[in-house]
């Protein structure tokens, strides 16, 4: 297992990049800790696959270095980086049995047959395929084949890192649960350094110790799921993480008070006098409806029943505000105010978070 260092790393698909916009991956510096699970999260075109391909060696960066345990591997081909990869679509040898598919990476490196036998058995138990070890991979469902791919990715204990590129996209929701939980317990058990690329926030948040949120070729925040939820560093993180995402409202902020469309809101903390385009970000989880006189005046447009909770879509002076209400909560017509729990209020200036003053 290895620590992975990204040093002044950037990539452009153009031969002579001049402007920052020419870079699909903008310059970044990061140390990824040995044994942690990271998720690269972002929408298509954000640069997450570019970054993964640079780490795996499929792509040579335009600038900067990549180090595994402080050793420069920037110019090393994939085969010399000692990594295991699992892709979006299953990669299995159809004519081989499940057992031979799982054993393949070990046999390739001349591992001891007794060790191979035990290890394959162990992996088969993890992916729940002990009973199909002697079956040919041909004819298995896509789910089963992807399980084999995952198992083969994890069969070697001596890899520097395990890279996953959207590995659960083709899997049914029910099976996703199972596989994700297995990956998670494997990580807990073996402590591999894992990097997992996905556009699905639930997968990223539940799988990773640290989630790396990417937007327009840039890492906008790297943090624990809790940090991304409670203190999104950029309004994009607030929008992208959470369903629905964070409410963002234009505001004037002075000290511990904000004014939004003529209504005063107490922030509970001081923010000085932020300049530029100032906005308040409040997640639907910290937003509630009230029938009192306090809060922003709103009109309820729609109430969506999502089972375990309700999503209330309200209009405030032409801006949509989303509110989460409990499954059994009654939404009465006289609820025409929105109030914020000030533990969940963040202030933004030009889309970046303004840290509150220390009291």
């Amino acid at each position, binding site marked *: 297992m290895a620590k992975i260092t990204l040093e002044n790393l950037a990539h452009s698909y153009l031969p002579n990049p001049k402007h920052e916009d020419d870079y699909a991956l903008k310059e970044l510096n990061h140390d990824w800790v040995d044994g942690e699970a990271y998720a690269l999260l972002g929408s*298509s075109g954000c640069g997450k696959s570019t970054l993964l391909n640079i780490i795996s060696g499929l792509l040579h960066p335009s600038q900067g270095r990549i180090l595994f345990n402080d050793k420069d591997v920037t110019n090393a081909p994939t085969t010399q980086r000692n990594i295991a990869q699992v892709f979006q679509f299953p990669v299995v040898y159809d004519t081989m049995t499940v057992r031979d598919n799982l054993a393949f990476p070990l046999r390739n490196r001349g591992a001891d047959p007794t060790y191979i036998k035990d290890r394959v058995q162990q992996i088969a138990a993890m992916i729940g395929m002990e009973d199909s070890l002697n079956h040919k991979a041909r004819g298995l469902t896509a789910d089963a084949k992807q399980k084999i791919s995952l198992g083969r990715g994890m069969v070697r204990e001596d890899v520097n890192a395990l890279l996953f590129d959207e590995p659960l996209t083709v899997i049914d929701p029910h099976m996703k649960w199972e596989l994700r*939980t297995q990956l998670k317990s494997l990580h807990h058990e073996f402590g591999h350094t894992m990097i997992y690329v996905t*556009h*699905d926030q639930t997968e990223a948040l539940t799988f990773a110790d640290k989630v790396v949120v990417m937007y327009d070729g840039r890492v906008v925040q790297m943090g624990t*799921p*809790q940090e991304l*939820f409670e203190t999104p560093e950029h309004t994009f993180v607030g929008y*992208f993480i959470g369903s629905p995402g964070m409410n963002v409202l234009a505001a004037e902020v002075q000290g511990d008070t904000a004014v939004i469309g003529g209504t005063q809101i107490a922030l509970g903390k001081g923010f000085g006098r932020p300049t530029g385009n100032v906005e308040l970000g409040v997640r639907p989880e910290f937003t509630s409806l009230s029938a009192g006189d306090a809060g922003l005046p709103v009109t309820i447009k729609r109430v969506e029943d999502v089972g375990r909770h309700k999503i209330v879509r309200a209009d405030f002076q032409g801006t949509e505000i989303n509110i989460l209400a409990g*499954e*059994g909560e009654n939404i009465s017509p006289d609820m025409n105010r929105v109030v914020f729990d000030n533990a969940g209020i963040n202030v933004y200036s030009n889309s970046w978070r303004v840290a509150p003053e220390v009291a």
Partner: protein
Amino acid sequence: MSLVLEGVSKVMNGQTHIYPTDLELQSGTMNVLLGPTSSGKTSLMRLMAGLDVPNTGKVIWGGKDVTGMRVQDRGVAMVYQQFINYPSMTVYENIASPMRLLKQSADQIDAAVKKAADLMKLTPFLDRKPLALSGGQQQRCALARALVKDAGLVLLDEPLANLDYKLREELRAEIPKIFEEAGSIFVYATTEPEEALLLGGNTATIWEGRITQFDKTPIVYRQPVNATTARVFSDPPMNFLKFEKAGNQIRFADGQLSSATLGAFAGLGDGSYVAGFRPNHLKLNKEAPDALEFTGKLTVTEITGSETFIHLKHHGENWVGLVHGVKNLKIGAPLSVYLDQAHVYIFAQDGTSVAPASYAAAA
């Protein structure tokens, strides 16, 4: 207008894809087919569309038997998981194509295309070719084409499955609004319970070629008529635990004795049953005084930022709980969880619902 399936079934290569099925769908309604991959959603849609002829039964549309009628003669629009557009045509021509086939006037076409493009937020891209658009825009183009066709039956087969999470969220909110006005019969296949809930309308849960329940979406979710429906319509999956009732005593499969009499337990006769409950109803604290308590071994926790998924091994079963807040609990240690009796569903051993959770009747 209504679309009625009467005892329709489909067998292909000796395999039954759809067992004899009855279903009635009304104009102006959204009807979700919810089930896992290969459960029969697409097969059922193909029978509705006339792409396949059923082995038994009849398809009746607007009172007329259309069982053998070709899809071309029926007025059906379909949108698939893959974005299907004509790559050599502009977005405008792609949307206009079904109307051109019907030889409608240029003015009619222009008005309809512009209206559909506006609804699907494609107006700035009308002159582009589909491949110059993002995946979300390409699928909007396919949806716009289905819309202008003004078909009596619109079939959407997992139309958002290939899109990014956030795009899916946006389109999912828009689709019911847009199609509500059109007055056609909408059928929407999905594998995701949350998608069914967000779309609203009616839901048919499908499992291994059979419709297990068809009703208004919140009713199917809260009052499943059998354990299969409950399982299909729950993500994470519903948790189950067997128990026996004799006299005033309940013996759960883990050996625990209880005298539960509230909610679905009220008035329950002697016999063998299965209790079911949803992950979000599992609690870490005893909130209700009569809450049931179970102790299992914590295998994994997953933190989403605002909530924590708890995976518990309890008496050989894997349970999933979803609790508010970030919980750092010790993996591998015993964990006690609590369940309000009002949140328990009770099924017979064959899976038939005996009593829904009492909270559900009020919700």
